């Protein structure tokens, strides 16, 4: 089965610019997660979706970050405007509903100049 797909793999932007990341989960996985991984640290959850509903977005900085999963399949995470401190790897993961094991994509490495 195909894994979690993320694009782009790398993105370099200037501060104050917008940026968007895309994720396509494993087919049949209703739960989708976005994580932030800073250099030298473990991933931290930003938002979790069950189908098209965001069920946990408590860690998402809503002043500049937004996410959507309109049809309950693929998802987009947006930052507007980007700040220097947003430079990190953004990981997407998916799982079957009720199953704790999560499958991760390769991530998008964002550099904000």
């Amino acid at each position, binding site marked *: 089965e195909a*894994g*979690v797909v993320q694009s782009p793999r790398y993105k370099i932007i200037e501060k104050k610019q917008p940026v968007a990341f895309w994720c396509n989960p494993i087919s049949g996985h209703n*739960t989708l*997660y976005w994580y932030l991984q800073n250099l*030298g*640290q*473990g*991933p*931290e*959850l930003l938002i*979790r979706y069950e189908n098209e509903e965001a069920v*946990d977005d408590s860690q998402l900085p809503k002043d500049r970050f937004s996410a959507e999963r309109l049809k309950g399949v693929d998802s987009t995470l947006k930052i507007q405007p980007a700040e220097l401190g947003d430079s990190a790897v953004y*990981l997407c*993961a998916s*799982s079957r509903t*009720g199953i*704790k*094991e*999560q*499958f*991760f*994509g*390769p*991530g998008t490495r964002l550099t904000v100049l």
Partner: protein
Amino acid sequence: AQSVTQLDSHVSVSEGTPVLLRCNYSSSYSPSLFWYVQHPNKGLQLLLKYTSAATLVKGINGFEAEFKKSETSFHLTKPSAHMSDAAEYFCVVSPSSGNTGKLIFGQGTTLQVKP
């Protein structure tokens, strides 16, 4: 609150020698515990998981971990390191109560394997 502490930020071993990566957890409930590995520029891959069945868990690539409730530990071991094992390893806890799907990651341990 749930948390994990990886006791070593960096471990260096010689190829063919045993590997020990240490992890302690804190959980109010009987947790689910995982070890994930992350190779450079690759996604996180599940090595093994403990979900309240056998306390000694065998994973992929010859890794195993033992759940010790009395010590609140879940250390990862491998009898003989291979060069391809060089990577970042994360110990992860997920609360068993409810089904939040939340994973809490440790800070990671970098494993270096010397020839």
